[in-house]
């Protein structure tokens, strides 16, 4: 029969670590280290193989959604997996290693990368035909939950230091540093006698062994141990630049503060030589001797947040409103340094590409 819808991904539902998501595309890649080794062996031919460990990487692209489907979108994924990566005691695979959230005119996309140990029983990456209407809350049923739509430019607001207006796109990049180790596994059964083991280390067998043949803690498996060693958050974006000559008489440049209009001639790029009355050039977060200055300090208002990326939540507790795109209980990004201001002049819209890095609390 020529109709074979089973070939198409739109019918499937993706599960990562047991959680279901609506995704645009996803990849799972398993690789095993292997290479021939040549010794003084009497022939140039590859007769001996060096077989190493396994690794598994996963990448997914997801939208950010508004409405019922928001529980299955990229924002839910990032908040869930960044929290898991920072949880010392409840390790669950897959482990997020990086995520980029990009918000622009066409909407928002999340690209996330994961690491797993390649163990089939981990369930890190599963493609299912789980009935979408059996997901609790029927998130994609527009007659039961709120109808779902793609989040667009009017659903986001952003602030990067002094840049508030004319922001065309903004990106947050989360990088989770990981380390991968292979240990020589201990014995699964009693090994030796306890009289040679100090009381404080009163064990004589592999404490993490299990009946799972693929458990990396068991002897004889190729699966790595994975750990998180750090997290960093940086970002970038693009804003339009507006240049107006407010000087009287006109001086044909955009370097001044217009006293009549009470605003700078250049918006989103600092073309002044002196930074105005307070001397604060707002392009980059310049430091001063003996001080640590954040983007908020540079604005002259230390209580202001230097970086803010928010999404409109129509179903917010207590009424529709703005809320942080990333859960502030997991990562608080309110302190930032602006590190890049790349002013571009072309025949089209004047733009500045900016970059920032955050303290992560």
């Amino acid at each position, binding site marked *: 029969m020529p109709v074979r819808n089973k070939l198409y991904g739109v019918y499937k539902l993706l599960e990562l670590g047991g959680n279901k998501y609506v995704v645009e595309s996803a990849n799972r890649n398993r690789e095993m280290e292997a290479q021939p080794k040549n010794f003084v062996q009497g022939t140039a031919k590859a007769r001996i193989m060096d077989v190493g460990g396994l690794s598994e990487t996963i990448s997914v692209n997801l939208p950010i959604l508004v409405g019922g489907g928001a529980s299955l979108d990229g924002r839910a994924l990032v908040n869930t997996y960044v929290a898991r990566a920072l949880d010392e005691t409840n390790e669950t695979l897959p482990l997020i290693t990086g995520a980029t959230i990009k918000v622009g005119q066409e909407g928002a996309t999340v690209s996330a990368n994961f690491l797993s140990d390649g163990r089939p029983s981990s369930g890190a990456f599963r493609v299912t035909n789980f009935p979408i209407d059996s997901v609790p809350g029927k998130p994609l049923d527009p007659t039961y939950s709120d109808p779902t739509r793609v989040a667009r430019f009017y659903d986001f*607001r952003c602030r990067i230091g002094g840049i508030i207006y004319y922001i*065309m796109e903004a990106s947050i990049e989360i990088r989770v540093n990981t380390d991968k180790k292979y240990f020589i596994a201990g014995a699964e059964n009693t090994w030796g006698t306890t009289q040679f083991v100090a009381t404080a280390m009163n064990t004589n067998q592999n404490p993490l062994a299990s009946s799972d043949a693929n458990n990396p803690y068991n002897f004889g498996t190729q699966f790595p141990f994975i750990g998180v060693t750090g997290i960093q958050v940086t970002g970038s974006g693009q804003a339009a630049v507006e240049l107006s000559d407010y000087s009287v008489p006109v001086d044909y440049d955009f370097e001044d503060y217009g006293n009549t209009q009470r605003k700078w001639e250049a918006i989103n790029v600092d073309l002044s030589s002196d930074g105005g009355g307070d001397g604060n050039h707002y392009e980059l977060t310049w430091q001063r001797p003996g001080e640590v200055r954040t983007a908020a300090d540079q604005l002259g208002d230390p209580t202001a947040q230097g970086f803010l990326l928010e999404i409109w939540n129509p179903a917010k507790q207590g009424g529709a409103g703005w809320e942080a795109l990333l859960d502030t209980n997991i990562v608080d990004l309110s302190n930032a340094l602006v590190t890049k201001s790349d002013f571009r002049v072309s*025949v089209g819209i004047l733009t500045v590409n900016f970059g920032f890095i955050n303290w992560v609390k």
Partner: protein
Amino acid sequence: MARKKKSSVFIPLGDPTTLSPGINSRMEVATGFLIRHVRINGNAIFVERFEVQPRQEIEAKWYIQGGPRASIANIGKKWVEGQMSFPLRVDRSGLLPESIRDILTNAEYPNESLRIDTNHTLSYMGLTAENGGSDDNTLLALDDVVVRSLTISVAPNSDIKVNITFFGTIDAKIAGNYVTPEDTEIGRKLNWNDCDASRYSSAMRTVSLLEFSIENTIEDAVFLTAMGEERSDQIKLFGVKQCKWSGKYEEILRLGAETENFFHGGWKVGENVTFDFGGLRFYTRVPLFEMTEQPLTALMIVRKSKFISLTSPSQSNQQGKLIYFPEEEI
């Protein structure tokens, strides 16, 4: 199936589909008795066709989502766009009405907005994504549009036709100026007999078609919502990046006609081209000609010439002026 009754973005109708459409409670403003009329900057214009109205990107998107049916909406930016065509018309003193003058001036200097009022273009200023359907429309002025393209053309035995496309947005929620029939002076449509054409090196006595076009390249932009501002799905701004003025004409060939009219392309400095459409003239100082086309047929042989107007890039420079009304001297 249980139906969720309370929703912040989805407000179901009481008993959908059981009532016939068109009951009085669902009647829309100005859909019952249309008086078709249009104003440009407050002045009436007689049009043959008018299709300027709000537009919006509305589609569905599909993901790996458990099935092929459309479930996720994708609602993008909103803007105003459309076209209009009208005959060139003069009043009893031979002058173009203000509305047509404003359109022509805007096409040449697209750095200020035109306001368009109609009796039939309904608009919704709020977020479509949060109030879909047909409720809450209003008759708003299309108060921030510019001419994106203008073509004026005439041929023997025809009136002068003007075709225009507009682009823009609704900047402020201003109620439309309800356009009522008004006392309008008797006028007449201009036609081929009102026209003339010439250039420095030719009287162009065998012209059989005249056409002049203005194309303004427009780029629009939307931005993330600024802190402290209301959300909006309207385009935030638009700008004109390029202005291109071009003309074309056709000439019937006969023995004795100017043979040096076959342009091999390139600019002709010191030349000029004037297209006189009766109530206005298009004056080109430095034409940049394309190669002339001269197809051979069994019928009358017609030579086709096209040119682009080269001028000063600054809009504030009068030296680069294109359109002249009767009271203006070239």
